[in-house]
């Protein structure tokens, strides 16, 4: 009994460390991928000096960020200022705990599920954590004692609260189809066909709301460089800025995973091994995000609010009603 328990515990710790290390490495190299792709989309090379093809660039950046001075501006409320970046990075990392990234594998006669924890309310957990992530931005912006940071923080809160509603509403049809809040169950429900085929509107609404939720172009008002310096992280330096940055890139991966799980069938797919399928799907979504960034200009604040409240929320509600009607008609 004790042996069984400790074996399970060791397995969990190993799984946690592997996922954590992989996730952090992926986030670091995602920066490289993004800079490279952005460069090529703008007919230039992107980083290509540090190592072959600039492959050492992420490491060089990390070393630079760690060795830089960690400044706290005068008049900042210190504790909140120091803690805020942690909130962003931590919530981003925690979301990955409920995302299944492969079929159960068998190791030494034990079935090991390739998910950190199969929460039966996984989806609510995801939404809750992404809401807590807003605190990091709001508090970081407020605690900096700078007008740019404050404006960035305010915009961040307004934007993320507005877009959380369509984000939540757009996955309701998915829950209705899968009849579960657990991300593992949602993945299993798509063993036949991915939900994007029956829920294309949901997919589009989710993608738009999620891009706004992770504050990327064209919804990057909280960190609008040309108006606000750098937005909520203007006053941050060194690894604290690095944590904001890390959080942003992890949420990019998380978003890719969530779209894969909710709409693209998670790790289900023919021929290729499940984990590879999952990575391919995440990669495609991440590529689309970078592609958006290379193409679209930032939208105005009133446009942001109009799209959120007058287009996405009604569309999501209509979609729920239509899905419900169809499900009802079938039974």
């Amino acid at each position, binding site marked *: 009994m004790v042996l069984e328990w400790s074996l399970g515990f060791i397995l969990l710790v190993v799984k946690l460390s592997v996922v954590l290390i992989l996730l952090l490495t992926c986030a670091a190299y995602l920066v490289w991928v993004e800079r490279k*792709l952005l*460069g*090529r*989309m*703008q*007919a*230039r*090379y992107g980083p*290509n000096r540090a190592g072959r093809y600039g492959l050492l660039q992420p490491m060089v950046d990390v070393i630079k960020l760690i060795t830089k001075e960690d400044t706290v501006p005068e008049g900042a409320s210190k504790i909140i200022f120091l803690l805020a970046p942690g909130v962003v990075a931590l919530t981003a990392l925690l979301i990955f705990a409920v995302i299944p990234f492969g079929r159960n594998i068998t190791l030494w006669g034990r079935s090991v599920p390739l998910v950190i924890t199969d929460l039966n309310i996984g989806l609510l957990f995801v939404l809750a954590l992404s809401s807590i992530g807003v605190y990091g931005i709001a508090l970081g912006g407020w605690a900096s004692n700078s007008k740019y940071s404050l404006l960035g923080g305010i915009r961040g809160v307004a934007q993320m609260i507005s877009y959380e509603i369509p984000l939540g509403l757009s996955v309701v049809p998915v829950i209705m189809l899968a009849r579960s809040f657990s991300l593992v169950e949602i993945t299993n429900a798509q063993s036949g066909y991915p939900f994007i085929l029956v829920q294309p509107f949901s997919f589009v609404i989710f993608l738009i709301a999620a891009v706004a939720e992770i504050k990327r172009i064209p919804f990057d008002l909280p960190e609008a460089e040309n108006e606000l310096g750098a937005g909520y992280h203007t006053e941050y330096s060194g690894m604290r800025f690095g944590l904001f940055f890390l959080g942003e890139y992890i949420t990019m991966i998380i978003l890719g995973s969530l779209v894969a799980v909710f709409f693209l069938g998670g790790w289900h797919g023919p021929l290729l091994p499940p984990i590879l399928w999952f990575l391919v799907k995440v990669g495609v979504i991440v590529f689309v995000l970078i*592609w*958006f960034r*290379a*193409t*679209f200009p930032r939208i105005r604040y009133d446009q942001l609010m109009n799209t959120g409240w007058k287009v996405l929320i009604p569309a999501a509600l209509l979609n729920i009603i239509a899905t419900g009607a169809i499900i009802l008609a079938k039974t």
Partner: protein
Amino acid sequence: MEGLKALIKGLATTLKILFRKPVTEQYPEVKRALPARSRAVIVLTRDPDGEERCVACYLCSAVCPVSCISMQSAQREDGRRYARWFRINFARCIYCGLCEEACPTLAIQLTPHFETSQRDILKLVYEKEDLLVNHGGKNQDYNFYRYAGVTMVGDKGSHISEKEPVDLKSNLP
């Protein structure tokens, strides 16, 4: 609907450019040939006889907007002036080319060579021996002392590229 079409058009453009060769010229590997008259590091040239052209007239240091040129004039045995020392602080120089324009003897000239960065700022202070080159720069044949600054030997109009004096009386109507 029109907006959606525009968005898709934008996405298509970026995707198309993704597969195009970048237009970047990778500087240290690919060096573009600069125009002959582009302005960078300053040199002091010599006339065709191998003498220093500079006559230490101080016009360049006077015209220099950032006061980066300094020198000390002196006189040779034969009466020709020269600069005992001549110093240009390239940490201050803005490569405006006014010194070249002011120079009456074509001694000071700007070259297209620009790769002079140093980690130690004092290494950017060039002395006369660093500035002097063994050629005439942009005008190899010019020798100031053939045209000016010498005693007249012959009659009026006999000097090099000098016109015959005009007979005022023949100009009468």
